[in-house]
């Protein structure tokens, strides 16, 4: 799949199917970065842990855990418990995101300054630094 495609100089952001199905079918080195997105619930953390293990097995590039909907230290602790010393980006729980979803609008359009949106925009900068 992704590995067979030539996207030229484009940055490709692949929103994979929910769960780990697509990830199991990725070939080695098909991607440069895997973002494992989790929220601090047992089910989500479990799927995330399996995804992270698979990404490591496949040497699928840089692994970054995106901890979303984090409300407090205990939420963050539950993520750290599972992912240990992995690179973790903490996205705060943010009503602006839920609001945008409800309206069927892009968070970046309706709430560009919302903390969660800014954190994700900063993550984009980290992935592809200016001049990179």
């Amino acid at each position, binding site marked *: *799949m*992704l590995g*067979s495609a*030539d*996207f*030229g*100089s*484009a*940055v*490709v*952001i*692949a*929103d*994979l*199917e*929910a*769960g*780990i199905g*697509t*990830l*199991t*079918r*990725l070939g080695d080195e*098909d*991607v*440069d*970065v*895997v*973002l*494992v*997105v*989790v*929220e601090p619930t047992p*089910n*989500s953390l479990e*799927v*995330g842990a399996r*995804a992270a293990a698979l*990404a490591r097995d496949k040497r*699928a590039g840089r692994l970054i855990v*995106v901890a*979303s909907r984090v409300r407090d230290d205990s939420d963050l602790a539950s993520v750290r418990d599972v992912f240990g010393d992995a690179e973790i980006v903490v*996205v705060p729980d943010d009503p602006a*995101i839920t609001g*945008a*979803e409800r309206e*069927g*609008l*892009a*968070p*970046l*359009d309706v709430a560009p300054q919302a903390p*969660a949106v800014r954190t*994700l*925009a900063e*993550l*984009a*900068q980290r*992935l*592809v630094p200016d001049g990179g």
Partner: protein
Amino acid sequence: MRVAVVGKGGSGKTTTSAVIARTLARRGLRVVALDCDTNPNLGISLGLGDEETERLAAMRDELDAGDAEHAPSWDELIDRFGSDGPDGVRLAVVSRIQNPEPG
């Protein structure tokens, strides 16, 4: 640079994909966003709106219903069956042919 975004449904995966894609596109980078989810709604989070998102999903369903011999290549999928979103992000909904079921 290829970035895969993975997680349980409802975890914030699509929001993450959308904000990253548009932030990079705003810097003038060419960005291709691929919606590989069985319930494709990346278009909504990117800001293409309900109608266009549904149109892309319906087109994907039609491609999936066709026979594999006439399946589009990646280039075709993106050029012919994709859509330009805000900030110039090119969105394509990935068909079953590009994103095969296991087994």
